């Protein structure tokens, strides 16, 4: 490869792309050409960098200088200053919330500093559409080792020793699962990569698929060898077109290089992978529902037992692992189980990728060792809560998870501790909430999701979630009573205990945890008919601070024009008023008033 003076790694993950990363990249290339730098400076598109909140972004190697929030307008100046004159542009660098000084180097930024990259080892470094770059980063060495120097039993033993647990949420020991599938009687065996990531706000699987598709292929080929599978499937959401495109390119390249297909590495071992597009049902992330969908049936879970390791795809033993699990495999094989098992806590080894979203300064994907404290993620990597607001809770595990209150902020994060707190690891979604969040509303939001996504097969999930949602809606509208709380709790428990699959069994978690840690908020909705966070608009009373309206806004009348019910009266330069009898509490006046004259109580 030709050496360049500088390599500009433009993030081309979905987040950055939707903010115009490709336009930025084109502008960069044009500008570099115009300045005659094309032989010295090269632009590379990489997979998701992880710091999605500040995209489109650019990392300049070899210095590792990080530019954020780029627009095409910034490019000519950036190219001239940095690449022609050698003066990095401070204006486009990351500045920590409480600091005035920008941090030029990516490795010095708090967001990146505390991360430990295993599954995301190649993110932002390689071009995901180029297999050679993957190989240059020691890619496929794990496969070479597994195929040439190890028996299937040794591979399984290594994975078992590493104590890697399924990253899809339930945390079953991956090595044990592999062994069960290997030992199943049938000769035909399948392996499946579950890339049907559906939790709202979670996108770590997409990021891995987009930034490093070969790591999944390598993991799957090693897995197939260990299990004795001849055919693999990747079940990917239709909503991930970019990930799918890169995956298909990766498969073609791997076949071209003899890493996939017949007679891999001349060892006589053959394995093929097929990509299957999901039609967009959340429940298809559940393994048995995924298998049904893969068979061409309605995507509905089947009763377990029998488990897929014995009776899976079309009745054959099938091993299903999540994207992140597969991505961990090559490193475990090449670097050894001992190295991996040293990371993390006693029962949860290795690292976990979380998508850190919500009311947090640094939004993005973070990979951290197991056992890290919640505080370190939120205040360290995440940079705390914006606008100096107070941290209230963090919701982990997506719609199936629970809310962890600020009292548990020093909780070390692993499978067991999260479960104890009433939540779960899930696929790794982490939604941070500040004091302006109503916990009843949060529970209602997640129930809306699960109720909508329930397949409807078993009655507790189909009907139970619907009635749970009904009760929650009633409470947020101020129509609840205290008996509702008992019914809510009782029904939640029964749904959790008796639902057929993971979706229903975890759907009440948001209710149960919010009721456990924030019961006072429920009571205040019911008894006082007040929403403490002022989110549930039906419980709010909107009034206008007359003095402010006149002195600050000069009676601008915007609220009057916006009010859909014509409940606001007033004249220019005079104070406006809200007629409480007509007001439907839509909050439009509050949203439009630029002078803070509309008050919510």
């Amino acid at each position, binding site marked *: 490869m030709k050496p360049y003076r500088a390599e500009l790694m433009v993030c081309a993950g979905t987040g950055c792309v939707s903010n115009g990363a490709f336009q930025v990249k084109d502008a960069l290339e044009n500008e570099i050409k115009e300045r005659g730098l094309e032989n010295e400076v090269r632009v590379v598109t990489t997979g998701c960098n992880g710091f999605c909140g500040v995209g489109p972004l650019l990392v300049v190697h070899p210095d590792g200088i990080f530019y954020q929030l780029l627009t095409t307008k910034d490019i000519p100046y950036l190219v001239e200053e940095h690449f022609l004159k050698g003066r990095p542009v401070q204006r486009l660098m990351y500045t920590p919330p409480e600091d005035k000084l920008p941090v030029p180097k990516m490795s010095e930024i708090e967001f990146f500093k505390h991360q430990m990259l295993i599954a995301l080892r190649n993110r932002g470094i390689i071009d995901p559409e180029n297999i050679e770059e993957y190989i240059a980063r020691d890619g496929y060495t794990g496969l070479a080792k597994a195929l040439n120097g190890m028996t299937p039993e040794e591979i399984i033993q290594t994975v078992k020793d590493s104590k890697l647990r399924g990253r899809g949420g339930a945390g079953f020991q991956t090595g044990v699962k592999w062994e069960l599938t290997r030992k199943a009687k049938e000769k035909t065996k399948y392996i499946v990569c579950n890339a049907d990531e559906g939790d709202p706000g979670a996108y770590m699987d997409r990021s891995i698929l987009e930034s490093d598709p070969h790591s999944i292929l390598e993991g799957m080929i090693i897995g197939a060898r260990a299990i004795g599978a001849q055919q693999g499937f990747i079940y990917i959401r239709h909503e991930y077109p970019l990930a799918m495109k890169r995956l298909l390119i990766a498969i073609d390249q791997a076949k071209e290089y003899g890493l996939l297909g017949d007679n891999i590495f001349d060892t006589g071992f053959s394995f093929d992978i097929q990509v299957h597009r999901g039609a967009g*049902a959340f429940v298809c992330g559940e393994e048995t529902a995924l298998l049904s969908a893969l068979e061409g049936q309605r995507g509905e879970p089947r009763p377990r037992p029998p488990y897929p390791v014995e009776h899976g795809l079309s009745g054959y033993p099938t091993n299903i692992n999540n994207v992140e699990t597969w991505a961990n495999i090559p490193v475990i094989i090449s670097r050894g189980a001992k190295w991996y098992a040293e990371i993390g806590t006693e029962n949860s080894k290795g690292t976990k990728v979380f998508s850190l979203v919500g009311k947090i300064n640094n939004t993005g994907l973070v990979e951290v060792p197991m056992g890290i404290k919640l505080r370190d993620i939120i205040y360290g990597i995440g940079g705390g809560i914006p606008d100096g607001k107070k941290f209230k809770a963090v919701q982990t595990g997506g719609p199936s998870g629970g809310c962890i209150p600020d009292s548990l902020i020093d909780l070390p994060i692993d499978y067991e501790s999260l479960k104890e707190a009433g939540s779960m690891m899930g696929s790794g979604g982490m939604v941070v909430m500040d004091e302006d969040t109503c916990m009843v509303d949060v529970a209602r939001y997640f129930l809306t999701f699960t*109720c909508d996504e*329930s397949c409807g*097969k078993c009655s507790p999930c189909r009907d*139970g979630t619907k*009635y749970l949602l009904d009760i929650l809606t009633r409470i947020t509208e101020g129509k609840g009573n205290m008996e509702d709380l008992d019914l809510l709790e009782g*029904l939640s428990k*029964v749904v959790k*205990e008796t639902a057929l699959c993971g979706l229903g069994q975890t759907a009440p978690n948001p209710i149960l945890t919010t009721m456990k840690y924030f019961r006072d908020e429920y009571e205040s909705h019911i008894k006082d008919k007040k929403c403490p966070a002022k989110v549930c608009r039906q419980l709010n009373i909107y009034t206008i601070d007359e003095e402010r309206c006149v002195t600050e806004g000069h009676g601008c009348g915007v609220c009057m024009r916006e009010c859909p019910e014509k409940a606001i009266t007033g004249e220019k330069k005079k104070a406006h008023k809200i007629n409480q009898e007509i007001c439907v509490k839509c909050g439009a006046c509050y949203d439009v008033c630029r002078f803070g004259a509309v008050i919510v109580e």
Partner: protein
Amino acid sequence: MINITLNGKKLSVEEGMTILQVAQQERIDIPTLCYHPLLEPYAACRMCVVEVKGDSKSELKTSCNTKVQEGMVIETDSERTLNARRLNIELLMARAPAAKVIQEMAAQMGIEKTPFPIENPEAKCILCGMCVRVCEDVVGAHVLTFEERGFERKVTTAFNMPSEKCIECGACAYFCPTEAIRVEDFRGREVLHSELTLGPTTAIRIPFMQSTPNVPFIDKDNCIHFKTDKCKLCEMVCEPEAINHDVEDTFKEIEVGSAVLATGYELLDCSNMPQYGYGRLDNVITSLEFEHLCHASGPTGGKILLKDGREPKGVAILHCIGSRDENYMKYCSRVCCMYAMKMAHLVHEKVDAEVYEFYIDIRAFGKGYEEFYNRMQKEGTHFIRGKAAEVTNAALIPEEENKLIVRAEDTTVNMIRRIPVDLVILCPAIVARKDSEKIMKLFGLCSTPDGFFKEQHPKLGPVSTDADGIFLAGACQGPKDIPDTVAQGAGAAGAVMSLGDEVAIEPIFSAIDEEICVGCKICIGVCPYDAISYVEDKKISSIEETLCKGCGACVAACPSGAADQNCFTNSQIEAEVSGALF
């Protein structure tokens, strides 16, 4: 064998059994809704949950699909289990408040009301998927499926349209635990007397009570297996493994010297007579259907019931439906008067109802018949002389509300009468079978103008036919009651016996001269008795002497003069003609 503890009792059970199977074996009641022993466990209703206790934690598991494991400790009625079942049934009560099985299950648990809102008080479907699974896995018709998801889920067909793939087997309705699926006959009536109306029939049945041999058979026309190549549930449940679907019908050729035709009759299709409302109005049935209804092995076990299960208070029996009628059959069906009176007698015996007989004349011509007629008059049967003109449900006066009204001219008092009743029994005309023409062609027979087989002579040959060695018995010759049929049958049997080994034929028959015949086949087309066949290897036509009646059609038609008739050869006729002329 595996050791488990079930409700505190230590048991040793076979490996591979589910908890539910063990519990049923131990006579422990676990409620189930979506479980059926002939279907794969579906585990959707969650009613069969039991508590499985482990060392550190105990879990609720569905007993229908969880297999027993060594050392399992199972509680089928712990507080936790019962609580889960209770809330689950409350959820289902809100979904399907009209489902009887849910109401009963709830009542058993002491639940009267569900705390959840009821959207449709008429709803019955609990989405147990029994129908969908049966249609898919057992029947293999793939007609039913689920639509939508979550709370909106429902059972439907593709695009919510009547499916062409439906084989109308009724399995979905049979398996449905809540009666949410109903089978209706083609006129939209609910099937109460499934055998009377045209609802689905069972594919395995004993043809009739007195059949020999008295064993069930598989009706290929109705058997699901022969439509979709699946099902075979009967094979699964038949312990002696007596069922074999691969057995084919075999055709045997038997050489006989003579045959007795006793192919019987049909009843006139009453639905072509709209004035009587058959097939349109409920509780208008034919005499044969009433016969079936009365029978101890019939749909109601011999009780005379209306469609809605009530006993009739008034019954009208309408004679001469299509018989003695210029518009339908001119002849008298002969048996109706007497069986109509027998039916009146049965109604008197079984229910407390008024019986009206609408007749033209009472033809009680047999031995003891007139006496029976007199007895019926004494029993209180109302005899109204006048043919029923119409059956309607349009009431004119309050007494006629919700009744069937029979309108007839009573010729004894010379007025039109309207009689309100609950049940109308039609006595349709006895007609020749639809396929009788085919039989006639096969045996070389003729028919009388009404379509019945023609006997050789009405007085001198009432049993034999124009075809030698072919005899008639019973209603295939014409309407006939049982004694007459038995007598004719015995006569036919006697005639067969008297034949011995040979059939005596008339001396006049045709023959084809093999030397002259060119094999043009013209004679085969003109022979009314199917007596001529083509001999492939000789390439000539040949006459079967026993079938030939000596009509001479072939002789006249033969262009080459090969056909000749003995006793009437050309030279003989020429001699006769010249003798007569000169």
